[in-house]
């Protein structure tokens, strides 16, 4: 099973500079655990200590925001494409 994962600039320090890595998993949670084995530290930037997805990271499966697909429970299939983008946000305070 191969899932293509596109990595944003700010997280490429965990993938040896790679823009795209491959992983496997039936759910997003499984995929992130799989990726963390080969790219330690990556999962820690995406999942909080509470076990939920980091609020200011956007993850998409085949261009759909995983927030609408069950977040970490989002189902994945062979050949899916996952894209990670840091949210662009800020405020006055």
């Amino acid at each position, binding site marked *: 099973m191969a899932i293509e994962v596109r990595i944003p600039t700010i997280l490429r320090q965990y993938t040896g500079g790679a823009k795209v890595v491959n992983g496997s998993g039936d759910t997003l949670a499984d995929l992130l655990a799989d990726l963390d084995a080969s790219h330690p530290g990556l999962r820690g930037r995406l999942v909080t200590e509470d076990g939920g997805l980091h609020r200011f990271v956007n993850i998409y499966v085949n261009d759909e925001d995983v927030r609408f697909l069950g977040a970490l429970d989002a189902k994945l299939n062979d050949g899916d494409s996952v894209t990670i*983008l840091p949210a*662009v946000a800020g405020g006055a305070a």
Partner: protein
Amino acid sequence: MLTIGRDILDAIIAHARRDHPDEACGVVAGPIDSDRPERHIPMDNIERSSTFYRFDAAEQLRVWREMDDRDEEPVVIYHSHTATEAYPSRTDSSLAGEPRAHYLLVSTRDPDGTEVRSFRIVEGTATEEPVRVVDASVDPAAVTTYMFGQSPAAVDYECPAGR
């Protein structure tokens, strides 16, 4: 240093004024590694707040994908502060996720003037940089048309009239 065209800067300021008192936000894309902001992309602030901004996730994917297809990167990421100075807040600095971008802050707190300042934000630390505004309407490479009797060093007879 951020080098930016007058026309693009004016468009960013106009966007900030239009959305005031909500924070406005957007991107200026440019060819990868060029450090030239060339294509202004105003973004929707889904927070619609006077104290917070956030790009809509689906729109951000579309814009980032489009930049990738065009071999561009976000050269400038801008947003406005509507009641405070044009300086990155703690939130701005901690959330900045594009280390190669120039973070442009626009303050619309004064109705009579707009404050614009630029910063590099890397690993949560903001460092201010100068902004150099270039006027693209004065193109040093343009052929200047001279009337006879004025003093070019050479006259280009191949130059089409009016150019």
